[in-house]
């Protein structure tokens, strides 16, 4: 499902962000990506999402070599992968409903389809009653749930999350992690980056540890 072969990425001549990463994540797997700040977690996710290009190596996602994708093919890749951001990345002038709907609009869904699927997904994250509100009227946990709803509304096969609980308190963290587990049970492959060891220990799954840009544990 997700395969990386000897991937290298550096910023400038002396700052290697990732070195010789070889990794395989199976279809439907839930994996944690951990390590201290600056270990390369975000860089790895950015490479998978096509936000950065590797200096060397190959990245294959659903039989597509992401490392060789043209810029014009990136939107298509991003529509097939859900991404949950630490800072939510919501459209502040749009309602909760529109924030989720926009992902479907971009994919060319019909208004009827959009209405049906947005209502359904907002129900699944418990925000159906707040669909007319603006993001600024929501709590951080609710905003993150909107972000989760937007990332799964297109039924992506893969969901990437970069510190999804980084801005949340303990209760809200639990709430979001439970939501991610539920999404995974429906068959979505998940790779969740976090530096929070506590939540990793609470949800025992495969743990990939990065240290100074290299895989220290859990590779393969």
């Amino acid at each position: 499902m997700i395969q990386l072969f000897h991937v290298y990425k550096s910023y400038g001549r002396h700052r290697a962000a990732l070195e010789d990463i070889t990794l395989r994540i199976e279809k439907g797997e839930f994996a944690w990506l951990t390590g201290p700040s600056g270990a390369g977690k975000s860089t790895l996710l950015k490479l998978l999402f096509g936000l950065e290009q590797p200096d060397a190596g190959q990245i294959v996602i659903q039989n597509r070599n992401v490392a060789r994708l043209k810029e014009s093919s990136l939107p298509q890749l991003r529509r097939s992968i859900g991404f949950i951001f630490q800072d939510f990345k919501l459209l502040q002038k749009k309602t909760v409903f529109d924030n989720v709907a926009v992902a479907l609009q971009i994919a060319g869904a019909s208004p009827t389809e959009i209405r049906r699927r947005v209502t359904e997904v907002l129900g699944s994250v418990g925000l159906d009653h707040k669909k007319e509100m603006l993001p600024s009227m929501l709590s951080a946990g609710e905003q993150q749930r909107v972000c989760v709803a937007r990332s799964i509304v297109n039924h992506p096969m893969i969901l990437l999350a970069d510190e999804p609980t980084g801005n949340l308190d303990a209760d809200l963290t639990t709430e979001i992690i439970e939501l991610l587990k539920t999404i995974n049970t429906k068959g979505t492959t998940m790779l969740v980056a976090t530096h929070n060891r506590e939540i990793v220990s609470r949800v025992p799954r495969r743990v990939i540890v990065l240290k100074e840009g290299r895989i220290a544990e859990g590779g393969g």
Partner: protein
Amino acid sequence: MRQLRYFLKETLLNLRGNKSTTLISMATIAFTMMLFGVFLLLYFNLDALVGSLQQEIKVILYLRDGLAEKERVDLEGKLRQGPGVSNVLYVSKAMALVNFRRSLEGQDILLKGLGDNPLPASFELTLEKAYQSSEAVQRLAQQFKGLNGVDDIQYGREWVDNVNTVLETVRVGSAVIGLILGLAAVVIIAGTIGLTVWSRLEDIEVLQLIGATRAYIQMPFLMEGALMGLIGGVFAVVLLRGVFELAKSRLADVGGFLGGQMNLMFLPMPWLLLFLAVGVGLGCTGSLLSIRRLL
């Protein structure tokens, strides 16, 4: 169609988001386009005037005094058979004098001392449409000059040439001023769209992250520019109509040749549509400049 509805909604949101800048831009576009329209109107009316003057062009062939009747008839036959002549009217010496007296009616003093009829007989030739340009008239005149019995030739070419020169100046002036005003409009629109893009950079980043194509992101901004150009163009037409009505009433007050002869016309519908299309084109160009630079 679905996408179009979304793009329109976004475009209107953008316009509403920067209300004051948008209004100022549209007013400036309307004013610059109106100025261009004034030149267009001037050109259109002068062109029509030249057209009507050319239709009235008559070539007058003055005949040598003492021309025998047979020679006159031969000459008339040749003129009728020649190319470009649609009608030949013979004006005898006596008829020329009658016409002359009629034209000076009430100013008999001028006619005293005229003595014997000094006016020559003549042929007044009306030309076919294809032969009404000043070049064609000149060519025909050269041919007629060599005919037996023709003493002199007169035609209103100088008049038409003068108006043509004015027309050419207005044409070049319109093009230059149109270009300058067009560039100004493009820069204004580019600036306004640039402000909108800046104010929405965060949203644009989000859209890119969730898989929006470049065209999807750019389209509302392109439509915003087009709409600004179109609305500016419509306002320009309204202003232009006002200027036109004012000019028309002033000309009627002036009277004389300009007031009487020059029947001012407003731009016809195809020209107006073209004018609005130019507005839309300017808007799109301004938008493209801005979004290509920023996105």
